């Protein structure tokens, strides 16, 4: 919190200092900062938490992969704070902080706009405020919050995002308003982590069923750190349910899988690849769309070593699309 204080406006700075909030840690409980999966050992700075040194980040995450553009996603508890006003103040500070401390430092860096998700009105206002800066290329939300993402209360956020060509980046994790599984609270972080991919299935069911992609036909969503290989089974089941009970959601004009292929993108870390290359090939065929996968280093999280971020056995043309073309198409503001 300390680093954000200079980026708060006068009122909120005084407010935060009065309450001593700058001494608290509002990191997300859903993302334990020191868990091995969240800190790759050779990406850990000598001082401070992983990812907090912009120079090191550029050197490791950008130079290391010869990256043309990299999108910074600040995973912070600001968007989970219960007070909408405080949440919005922290989000504004984070967005101004990331612009000054990261984007100004390296022309390859881009960022996502962090928004107070539990107030659609304030979130839309923050999108409008930051959209002027074209280095912000996406809106960042958590996969699990108070309400399923597709609920109509959230639509002002989608409306603003679509207006400015900003995809909605949905990151793994939860504000823990509810247990991360519908069976209740698991015991282990490993269980939470595995549950993120099942949460994304719920996110897609919500976005599609509510008609988000009918109302906002240009909107794209990017599922980040979601795993990839769960997608075919989700498609088969969602399509089957839709065929049986589409009378409940008559606004849908095509199958859930087809909405996903048009509007949903997934980052490739972690991939959760099958053990064999032929199985991977089959999963890619089942996904049935070369446009859906986007490269991500997931820096500084630890899913792979060296620069070995893609699963073995990807076809060359798909690799090219994953590394470059799909991202340029998904994020129109990268080409501005």
């Amino acid at each position, binding site marked *: 919190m300390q680093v954000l204080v200079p980026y708060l406006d006068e009122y909120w700075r005084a407010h935060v200092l009065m309450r001593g909030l700058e001494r608290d840690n509002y990191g997300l409980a859903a993302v334990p900062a020191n868990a091995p999966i969240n800190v790759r050992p050779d990406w850990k700075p000598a001082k401070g938490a992983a990812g907090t040194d912009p120079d090191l980040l550029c050197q490791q995450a950008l130079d290391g992969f010869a990256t043309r553009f990299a999108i910074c996603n600040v995973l912070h508890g600001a968007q989970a704070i219960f007070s909408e006003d405080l949440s919005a103040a922290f989000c504004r500070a984070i967005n101004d902080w990331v612009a000054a401390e990261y984007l100004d430092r390296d022309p390859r860096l881009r960022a996502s706009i962090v928004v107070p998700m539990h107030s659609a009105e304030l979130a839309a206002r923050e999108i409008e405020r930051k959209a002027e800066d074209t280095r912000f290329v996406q809106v960042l939300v958590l996969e699990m919050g108070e309400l399923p993402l597709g609920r109509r209360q959230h639509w002002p956020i989608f409306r603003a995002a679509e207006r400015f060509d900003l995809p909605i980046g949905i990151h793994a994790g939860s504000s823990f308003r509810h247990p991360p599984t519908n069976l209740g609270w698991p015991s282990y972080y490993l269980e939470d982590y595995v549950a993120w*991919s099942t949460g994304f299935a719920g996110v897609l069911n919500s976005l599609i069923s509510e008609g988000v992609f009918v109302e906002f036909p240009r909107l794209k969503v990017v599922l980040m750190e979601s795993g990839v290989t769960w997608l075919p089974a989700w498609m088969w089941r969602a399509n089957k349910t839709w065929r049986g009970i589409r009378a409940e959601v008559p606004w849908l004009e095509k199958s859930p899988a087809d909405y996903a292929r048009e509007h949903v993108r997934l980052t490739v870390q972690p991939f959760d690849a099958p053990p064999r290359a032929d199985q991977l090939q089959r999963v890619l065929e089942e996904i049935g769309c070369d446009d859906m996968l986007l490269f991500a280093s997931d820096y500084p999280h630890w899913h792979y070593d060296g620069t070995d971020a893609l699963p073995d056995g990807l076809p060359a043309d798909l690799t090219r699309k994953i590394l470059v073309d799909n991202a340029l198409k998904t994020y129109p503001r990268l080409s501005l």
Partner: protein
Amino acid sequence: MNVTVLDRQPDTDTQSQLGFVDCDVHPYTKSPSDLDPFLPERWREHRRTIGARSRSAFSAAPNYPRMSPGTGMRTDSWPADGSHPGSDLDLMRAQLLDAFGVAYGMMMPLLGRGGDERNVEFGAALCAAANDWQAALWCDREPRLKASVQITTEYTEAAIREIEKRAGDRRFTQVMIPPRGLEPLGRRRYWPILEACAANGFPIALHLGGTSGHPSTGGGHPSFYHEEHPSYPQSKEALVTSLVIEGVFEHIPNLRVVLVEGGFAWLPSLSWRLDKHFQRLRAEVPHLKKLPSEYIRDHIWVSTQPIEEPERPQDLLATFEWIGWDRIMFSTDYPHWDQDDPRYAIKVPIPEVEKQKLFRGNALAFYGLD
């Protein structure tokens, strides 16, 4: 896909010769008072005055209204007298048991709902009553039907008493637990119940359901049945994760479970994901001695309905192969709207040996039936 179904000729002869085992059949009462003969007067009185109290919004309807009358029944399954689908043995014989030459039908009663009851004494009484009702009204009249022991996981002593009481009674083949309880089933507090199942020779049927009060997604309550229905696989994924990662199968090596009414196509990718992230976080779970996928292979069976329908039908075979042909058991879910018809459900030819396993052999072995 629908065209493919319509174009295919019924396959009844082959499969009726198989005499398949149906791992998910739902018997119903004609009226809630049908359980009264099996309830002590104290609880009959309670049912009349206070009634069922679960953790969902409505007193006697599901949170998500279904799309056909009778909370989602197959529309042609209503008995002539207007009583509830699944409540008439003769109709069940005509539409299911005799129609397909079913060898055995595993009953999964969704009535009484003792497992959901917040008053656990009442819940335990409802479970015991549902067990007596299954045995007397169904198994004794139709030996092809097998009963599932109902328990409430929130009252350990009563659950264990009920399991021990039914042990050795060949009419009961398994213990049925609605997995959406207060906490994930792998948590330590449930181990005495899981131990009792294994100790008394019962596999556990984890049929979707339960009214935990937790939203069906980690991001809150969805709006539509169109979201609730496809959330069942996610429930099953959390269930497998909990049982495996908590170390249940390390602690109870002879425990066997079958997942019912959640489909199965999600299981391979869940296994890949579990194995991948277990390797990074294994220090957190030192009680695990094998890869998560190995526990899954050794302890978990799946039933098929509602069977996933890949856009390329042959992809189903790869899914079966990954899970293991000896781990998959056919189920219809009669008389629900989304039941699978054994003639049409699998839209790709299966070799005869594997077909025998899937429709019959695996279930006979799993339940120790002839």
